[in-house]
């Protein structure tokens, strides 16, 4: 396992971000040099740019079965989440000040809610079970008279679990409370329908389904009061000021259009590859377990905890073999804290350090999975051979 050039390059970190599809890039290219007008300008240059973003709005709306006029373009999923949480809470502040989120939300939801808490709102963080599932009854129980917003993610990017959003949505609606879902990890990868989910707001991001970075959206049901994060012009109905990122929005639209057509075939292609990892890794390596729900999970997502070793060390060695993955270990986070998601699921800190997450994409094939299954076990073995935790475990085992 030297420093030689890897035999193969395997990118299995699509949830971090993805390449744009050729058709997406092709759709975007004219909007850098040929169509460069400001969509707000009242001349032909502006008209063409405006038409382009309106077309993208329709494409994005079609992906989630919403109305185009309910789509607000943002720069990222994080921005969409911040806009939903802060914008909706502040918009409803006259009715109450209580917010509910789950313990495994992305930080753009969790920390946005914490920021509101510091500003005088009250926050309830509902727990999850060992699979990362939120209990709809737990959400219902947490709703108070002054609850103004509930936000539970559609699918978790770290452990792949898909939450029972439709069921939660029903209960939240019965209570007459607004319901937002962070569907960044799910949209474009599994069917998403805002009406079936029963949500009032939904965040999505293009770079989770082969669109470019820098284009995302918040879908927001009509006639809901939202306070913008920024002050400025009339773009996006005044809810998201700033000159529109036309090429990226066009790319997001194209990616959405392709997703509508290709989600079934992508799922059909990726779930067997995912299942091969889910089956193959625990077969090849001892003391490994799947994180997240075994069946109610994203079709392109396989995540594990590998005991007695640490994630960043695995990442570095996998990288030296040409394999790109993610981990939720403390050392891979800049804050040096183990994943809040794994901890919320009741996984002990030292085991959460060995988290490894594979997220697949359309460019992956069976040979990629075989390569991972071949390269990972010796890497784990090598790190365990130098792990004092493993040495202790083996000694105790021998008695």
């Amino acid at each position, binding site marked *: *396992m030297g420093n030689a050039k890897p035999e193969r390059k395997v990118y299995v970190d699509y949830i971090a971000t993805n390449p744009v599809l050729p058709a997406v890039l092709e759709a975007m290219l004219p909007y850098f040099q040929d169509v460069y007008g400001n969509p707000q300008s009242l001349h032909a240059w502006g008209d063409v740019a405006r038409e382009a973003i309106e077309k993208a709005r329709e494409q994005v709306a079609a992906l989630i079965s919403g109305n185009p006029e309910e789509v607000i373009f943002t720069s990222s999923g994080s921005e969409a989440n911040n806009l939903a949480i802060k914008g909706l809470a502040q918009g409803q502040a006259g009715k109450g000040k209580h917010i509910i989120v789950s313990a495994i939300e992305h930080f753009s939801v969790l920390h946005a809610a914490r920021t509101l808490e510091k500003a005088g709102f009250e926050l309830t963080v509902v727990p999850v079970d060992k699979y990362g599932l939120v209990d709809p009854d737990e959400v219902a129980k947490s709703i108070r008279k002054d609850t103004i917003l509930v936000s539970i993610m559609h699918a978790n990017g770290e452990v792949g679990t898909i939450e029972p959003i439709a069921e939660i949505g029903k209960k939240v609606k019965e209570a007459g409370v607004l319901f937002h879902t962070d569907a960044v990890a799910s949209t474009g990868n599994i069917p998403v329908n805002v009406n079936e989910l029963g949500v009032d707001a939904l965040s999505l991001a293009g770079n989770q389904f082969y669109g470019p970075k820098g284009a995302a959206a918040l879908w927001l049901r009509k006639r809901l009061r939202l306070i913008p994060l920024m002050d400025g012009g009339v773009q996006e109905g005044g809810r998201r000021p700033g000159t529109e990122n036309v090429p990226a929005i066009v790319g997001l639209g194209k990616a959405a259009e392709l997703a509508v057509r290709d989600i079934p075939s992508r799922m059909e292609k990726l779930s067997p590859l995912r299942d091969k990892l889910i089956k193959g890794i625990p077969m090849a390596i001892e003391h490994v377990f799947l994180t997240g729900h075994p069946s109610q999970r994203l079709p392109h997502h396989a995540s594990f905890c590998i005991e*007695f070793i640490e994630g960043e*060390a695995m990442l*570095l060695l996998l990288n*030296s073999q040409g394999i790109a993955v993610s981990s939720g270990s403390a*050392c891979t986070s800049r804050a040096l804290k183990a994943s809040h998601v794994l901890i919320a699921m009741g996984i002990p*800190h030292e085991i959460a350090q060995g988290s490894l997450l594979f997220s697949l994409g359309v460019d992956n094939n069976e040979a990629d999975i075989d390569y991972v299954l071949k390269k990972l076990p010796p890497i784990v073995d090598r790190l365990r051979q*130098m792990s004092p935790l493993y040495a202790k475990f083996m000694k105790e085992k021998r008695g």
Partner: protein
Amino acid sequence: MPMYSEKVMDHFMNPRNVGEIEDADGIGEEGNPVCGDMMTFYIKVKDNRLEDVKFQTFGCGAAVAVSSIVSEMAKGKTLEEALTITPSLVAHELEGLPKNKYHCSNLGAQALRKAIRDYAQKRGITIKGLEMKGEQDEEGEES
């Protein structure tokens, strides 16, 4: 990937002195798997010199590289000399560590110090430099 120096990567990819000394004269453990890093150092002493140093490490690339370089720096040194290995020396020897990984160099220096302390306690001897508190320098070197 963190921005590791070539030297850190070299010591991570090819760590020196990994393992356990079965009949070690001193053992030092530092860190905690809950925080992400844990190191155990084993030393063998002959004529007041570190005849052999081995380690086991649970942790990130920096933690492994720190353990490796500390073992290399310590081997062959007198106990007094080994106690002068400070976190900043370790980081310097590794051609720098990312700021948020600097604490790993503390762990390495401390684990070695604890192994020497263990040896001194077992023998009932005092060693110059041992009574001093280990350097708790948390400031990272700009690298």
